């Protein structure tokens, strides 16, 4: 077992295990954090980082193991109890209330009051305290500003201000820079260092390894729900982190790529001068060959989802020229894309991909009901048969097609989304974050499916924020930065650095 000891731990998690139905999320995991120490918690998606942090934050119960704070064993049963112990969680998704102003957000549930039992909000104290805090964080804005007028980065700093004002001793930051620009990231890292100087302990979760290199005192690596090593300050470098995180050769994980040069006879799926509502000033153009997997990379907010939503017709576009094999297509609504064999597996599975209260059968047949109907009446025998075949052919783990989709695991839900399209001769399949929140085994199955589809002649577009994934699955990678297509990389040019340079807009 790797050494996870810290000289003077304020937090010591020992032997933490957690099982979900069908999945071991954590197996005997240890984590120690010293006072005023910045510990990076790294690992691939699904490695167990967020499960471990949810247990620490009181949002999940562990099955076994102990948690000690300052040497005292504690039971943390709710976020409120975690907060009382000085543990604060800054989530990847912002949790500010954007209908309130900055001060109200910072002091939510802890508003200074006056007037005795009337508990009137002491507005003067509220705003002066909040302003003082903002100044301390180097935020140049009034605490009376409504949060909805702030940039994402500023909103994030408001969240940090809130956690600091509670007197947190242990701060968990989950991907805090995922939606920040470079200069905003710099500012945030400075603040993190400043917090360390004030003896706040920080658990820093990030996929951006250069940030970890810059600020972490130690890096604890998780892989498949287990400890996979600890890197001390002097050992933290990019290669060692990647090796520890992946723990196997990428080539084993991804089926070897196809050839991006299959399109000799004009078999292209072509997007030209696509201008989305969010980034109307940038025209995006690219081509995908028949049988090719094109990766679409970029930071959060780079406009990747907007591009694929516009292609699928689920979002309007300022300008949208799409053609398949040289024939221009008119796509205004999803039905237009679907009838041309262009399908989207959307990012938010539970919100957009599935109707979770429908069963597996009803979900699979939904976009192609007419194929299972005569005179607009559903032929349920046909429908059931198709669902059973789909369940079998791509190995959806469900007792029957009549099971509610909500009860399936993430990976199996994703397969249900995919099953909608497989029987209907896809020409272009677009995956938006296909493996988000999916365990490793199911991930490998999804990668194999994507590769198989490409080999069958489908043009595939994969949007992904996971570097290993996009490097492993793609034949070429198109990179977006704030709505602008900053470059397209050929397989020979693939490297994490090359993608990051384009994604952060430092080149091109």
């Amino acid at each position: 077992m790797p050494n996870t000891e810290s000289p003077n731990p304020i937090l010591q998690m020992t032997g933490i295990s957690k099982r979900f139905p069908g999945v071991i999320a954590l197996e005997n995991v240890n984590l120690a954090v010293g006072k005023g120490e910045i510990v990076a918690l790294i690992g691939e998606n699904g490695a167990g980082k967020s499960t471990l942090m949810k247990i620490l934050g009181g949002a999940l119960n562990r099955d076994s193991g102990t948690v000690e704070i300052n040497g005292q064993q504690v039971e943390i049963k709710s976020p409120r109890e975690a907060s009382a112990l000085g543990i604060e969680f800054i989530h990847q998704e912002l949790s500010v209330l954007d209908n309130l102003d900055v001060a109200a957000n910072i002091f939510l549930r802890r508003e200074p009051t006056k007037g005795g039992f009337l508990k009137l909000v002491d507005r003067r104290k509220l705003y002066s305290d909040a302003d003082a805090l903002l100044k301390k964080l180097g935020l140049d804005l009034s605490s009376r500003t409504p949060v909805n007028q702030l940039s994402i980065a500023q909103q994030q700093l408001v969240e940090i201000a809130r956690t600091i004002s509670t007197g947190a001793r242990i701060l968990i930051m989950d991907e805090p820079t995922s939606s920040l620009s470079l200069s905003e990231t710099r500012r945030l890292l400075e603040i993190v260092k400043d917090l360390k100087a004030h003896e706040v302990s920080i658990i820093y979760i990030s996929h951006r390894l250069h940030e970890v290199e810059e600020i972490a005192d130690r890096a604890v690596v998780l892989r498949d729900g287990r400890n996979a090593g600890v890197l001390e300050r002097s050992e933290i470098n990019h290669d060692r982190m990647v090796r520890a995180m992946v723990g196997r050769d990428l080539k084993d994980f991804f089926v070897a790529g196809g050839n991006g040069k299959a399109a000799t006879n004009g078999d292209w799926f072509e997007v030209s001068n696509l201008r989305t509502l969010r980034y109307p000033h940038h025209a995006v153009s690219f081509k995908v060959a028949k049988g090719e997997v094109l990766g679409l990379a970029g930071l959060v907010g780079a406009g990747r989802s907007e591009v694929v939503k516009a292609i699928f017709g689920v979002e309007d576009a300022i300008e949208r020229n799409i053609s398949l094999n040289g024939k221009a297509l008119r796509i205004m609504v999803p039905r237009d894309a679907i009838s041309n064999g262009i399908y989207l597996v959307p990012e938010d599975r539970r919100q957009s991909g599935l109707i979770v209260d429908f069963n597996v059968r009803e979900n699979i047949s939904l976009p192609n009901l007419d194929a299972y109907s005569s005179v607009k009446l559903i032929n349920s025998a046909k429908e059931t048969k198709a669902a059973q075949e789909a369940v079998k052919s791509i190995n959806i783990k469900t007792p029957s097609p009549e099971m509610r989709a909500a009860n399936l695991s993430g990976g199996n839900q994703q397969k249900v989304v995919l099953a909608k399209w497989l029987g209907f001769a896809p020409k272009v399949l677009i995956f938006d974050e296909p493996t988000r929140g999916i365990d490793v085994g199911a991930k490998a199955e999804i990668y194999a499916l994507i590769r198989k589809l490409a080999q069958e002649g489908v043009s595939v577009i994969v949007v992904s924020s996971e570097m290993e994934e996009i490097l492993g699955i793609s034949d070429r990678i198109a990179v977006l930065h704030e709505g602008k297509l900053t470059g397209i990389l050929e397989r020979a040019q693939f490297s994490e650095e090359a993608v990051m340079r384009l994604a952060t807009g430092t080149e091109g």
Partner: protein
Amino acid sequence: MKKELGIFILLVVLCIIVSIKNPNFLLAINLQNLARQIGSFGIFSIGLGLVIITGGIELSVGSMMALLGVLMSMMLTEWGFGVVPAVVAIIAVAMVLTLIHGLLITRLNMQPFIVTLCGLLFYRGLARFITNDETKGFGTVAGLDFLRYLANGNLFGVPMPFVLLILISIIAWVGLHRSVYGRYLFATGRNEEAARYAGINTNRIITAAYVIAGALTAVSGIIFAFYTNSVSPANHGNAYELYGIAAAVLGGCSLRGGEGSVIGILIGTALLQVLRNLVNLLGIPSSLDFAVMGAVILIGVMADQIFTERRNRRQVALMRESMKQQTG
């Protein structure tokens, strides 16, 4: 079917209790009367149920009935319409009005509650204005026998509105539970975004539900107009939308959308009318009738909620079991 069982049992138990307490409940005349009420209320309740399945609401039903009632009377007695053109015109007016509701809701993204609340106020006011607040009847116009028969007549002893309700229910059942439109309606009500990603034109599905509700409101409206034989613009149909909503909710429709069944709505309607009947027959002060209805609806919906939770838990347990078998 399972879902409606609880409310059906409640209905049967109520009927048994009432018939024991007061055997007059089982008199043919009482049952006929009850069936007539169930028929008249059931027809528009099915329409309201469709709207509720989209996740919307339609509050203007009662006012629209008043407006349609007075228009019907004025067309026949004052404007010289023939019977068939009048009926067609009434149904068309209702469908156009609800089409406007649907378009405001889907195209302008207005909230169904607001749009139809304004309808409720506007149609009532319009009905009163065009009639100078005078009650309208059908006088001695000839050729109304068939419409009168629809409202007051019997077919082999079964009141016509009930016969009509059964016919409409069969069509609605097929439409809702067996047709592509029905599946789309449930999908849209459950999760409009996912429905859009599946290529469903959700705006059209939702608007269609309002228009169907309008047409059924017109059919019910014509029956009510000839049943009462006079339409008082200020009171006719007052609060009928609430009967429809209550019937739909009792029958398992969720106001969050995506849930409900034709059979449930029918049982819900029957239960409400039995309750009204029961208040009379058991000598409960009529001032209490709304209180009785409120209490029974609350109990019914509560029981339904408990059933649903149980069923979900059973499914999760089943899932766990099959997972264990696969991993172990």
